[in-house]
């Protein structure tokens, strides 16, 4: 039905309804992108404020309760509103069908519905911020959450609703990858980003419903007191932790797998080289997805979980380190004998490699039982998961954002400012979080409003780092928004990428391709592509 009019998808329709009720995966992806960026800004603001409070060992700006609300909201907004949908729902939505060579996702209306559900859930979360912000920590541990006088129900309801948005996106992507591949696009010709998205979707579909039912039971617990999580009524608070982490540990891989997918795209394009060990990288995504379901109990090593279960979970936790390590080694070797160009996206690739390696190696410390006893619930854990989540996922998200920005909006950003901001983000991030490893192993517990005076120099250093980090992000926001207005027009293939999105115009037409390209070789085969 589409005609080769030369119009891109922006020009295909106009008016706010053409966005809010669009069935085009590209527009939905961009709306998600805007939404997650706003959520990131909000979560980042909370982070700046709570780090500011920690500049001194005692009260500086906020009361203890306000501080507790700040770190809870920081966690909840970053996890549920930003990082879970960050890559899959925005960049994934935009590029999954294009890289596949399809006209759209399998269920466009479901895709729109999941965006609307996301907005609806986000509104619930925002409402809860103004109606007595929740102070339970983003993990909602019982019985604290059943006793808290803050808006526990509206925040959990928000997270419950957001969960369905995530599930529906997962269903959609699985069906798309299975059924929408054009002729020639075999499983082993899929770009590695799609393998990662597929593995992510499997986790979204199989793990997120457990979060749904857990939060549902928790809402019943708070409102009706059904008692299964409440020790005062004969329930077991550790059971809540099992339920919660059955979702929330695999959720960590919902966050990192798409990031790993982006890494594979970046390293091949900017080294002009075929990926080293395609099948190992692809299968390791699936392996991570499956093993991720078997390790949730490592969050409960000191929670009163049985020692036998603890042993089992620790053993399996070590297994999940292997496929992650395989990926990192493969990316590193892909650089060998390449032609490496240090454009902004590749700088993010290097940042990811540096930071994610630290995050991964410190994860081994935490998986080790005797050491976890000491490090559990200290700043070491805070630093570890920020190195993985922010050093990993956010760096990859930014790498992907810069990589695909010209394709999405058809404009180039300032390369100079791109590199400056990447450098600031990298330096700022390390200043904030590296000292937290030391604080943690020295015994500083997390979620502390006041702390011992002796920790102040380290805390202050960390707080100064947030300002560098914040500056990096402000610069980024400025040059990206500026490029929308006055950026140079982007060529169709600015980086020399081989995957299908670079074979259509920037920005792509309504149905992605004027003519669907023929797929005759592997996604990163620079020899056959004859570039």
């Amino acid at each position, binding site marked *: 039905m589409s005609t080769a009019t030369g119009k891109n998808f922006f020009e295909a329709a106009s008016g706010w309804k053409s966005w809010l009720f669009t069935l085009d995966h590209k527009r939905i992806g961009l709306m998600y992108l805007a939404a997650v960026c706003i959520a990131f800004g909000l979560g980042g603001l909370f982070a700046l404020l709570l780090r500011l409070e920690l500049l001194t060992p005692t009260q500086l700006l906020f009361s203890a309760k306000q501080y507790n609300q700040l770190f809870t909201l920081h966690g909840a907004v970053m996890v549920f509103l930003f990082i879970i949908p960050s890559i899959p729902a925005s960049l994934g939505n935009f590029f999954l069908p294009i890289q596949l060579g399809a006209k759209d996702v399998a269920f466009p209306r479901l895709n729109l519905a999941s965006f609307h559900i996301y907005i609806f859930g986000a509104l619930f979360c925002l409402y809860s911020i103004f109606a007595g912000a929740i102070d339970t920590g983003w993990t909602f541990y019982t019985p604290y959450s059943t006793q808290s006088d803050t808006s526990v129900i509206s925040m959990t309801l928000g997270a419950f609703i957001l969960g369905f948005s995530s599930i529906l996106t997962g269903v959609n992507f699985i069906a798309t990858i299975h059924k929408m591949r054009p002729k020639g696009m075999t499983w082993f010709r899929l770009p590695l980003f799609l393998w990662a998205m597929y593995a992510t979707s499997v986790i979204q579909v199989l793990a997120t419903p457990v979060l749904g039912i857990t939060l549902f039971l928790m809402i019943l617990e708070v409102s009706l007191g059904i008692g299964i999580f409440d020790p005062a009524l004969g329930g077991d608070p550790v059971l809540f932790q099992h339920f919660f982490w059955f979702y929330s540990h695999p959720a960590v891989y919902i966050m990192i797998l798409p990031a790993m997918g982006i890494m594979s795209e970046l390293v091949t394009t900017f080294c002009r080289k075929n990926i080293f060990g395609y099948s190992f990288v692809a299968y390791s995504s699936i392996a991570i997805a499956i093993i991720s379901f078997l390790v949730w109990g490592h969050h409960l090593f000191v929670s009163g979980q*049985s020692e036998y279960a603890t042993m089992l979970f620790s053993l399996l936790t070590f297994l999940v380190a292997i496929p992650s390590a395989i990926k990192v080694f493969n990316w590193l070797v892909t650089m060998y004998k390449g032609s490496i160009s240090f454009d902004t996206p590749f700088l993010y690739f290097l940042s990811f490699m540096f930071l994610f390696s630290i995050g991964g190696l410190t994860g081994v410390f935490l998986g080790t039982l005797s050491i976890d006893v000491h490090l559990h619930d200290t700043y070491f854990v805070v630093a570890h998961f920020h190195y993985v989540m922010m050093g990993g996922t956010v760096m990859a998200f930014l790498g992907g954002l810069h990589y695909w920005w010209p394709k999405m909006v058809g404009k180039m950003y300032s390369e100079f400012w791109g590199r400056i901001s990447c450098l600031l983000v990298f330096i700022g991030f390390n200043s904030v979080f590296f000292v937290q490893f030391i604080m943690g192993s020295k015994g500083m517990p997390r979620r502390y409003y006041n702390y011992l005076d002796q920790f102040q120099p380290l805390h202050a250093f960390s707080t100064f780092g947030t300002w560098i980090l914040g500056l990096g992000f402000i610069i980024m926001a400025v040059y990206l928004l500026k490029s929308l207005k006055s950026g140079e027009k982007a060529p169709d293939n600015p980086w020399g990428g081989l995957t299908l999105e670079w074979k259509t115009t920037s920005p792509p037409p309504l149905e992605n391709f004027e003519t669907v390209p023929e797929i005759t070789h592997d996604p990163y085969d620079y020899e056959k592509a004859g570039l």
Partner: protein
Amino acid sequence: MSDNHSHHIIVPVKYYVATFVALLVLTFLTVYVTRFDFGALNIYVAMLIAVMKASLVLLVFMALAWDKGFNRIAVVFALLFFGIFIAFTMADISTRGSVEELEAGTHNINSPVRPLSESSKHNKVHH
């Protein structure tokens, strides 16, 4: 890579009727067996019948018996992770506290702890 050659399966009515009858019989059976006490096995008998009923519904009513590979895999994976959820949670619940009963040698732990008398002797030497 769509499979254009496959056709919709139209299952003969007799299969549906037979399944329906079997389900009713099994429902009757599951109620009937509660008259007998198998002790701890009660739950397994009930679950066995429930699994048989569920398999009938899945295979015939939901046509998995004639369906494509992936739809079966989806079900298998859902049940697999459901099973893991139960097994691992129960691995905790049912073994809690049992490590307390361990004798120090069971896990080949060379406990660094000395008997009290020895410890107090040590103490005197120390000071």
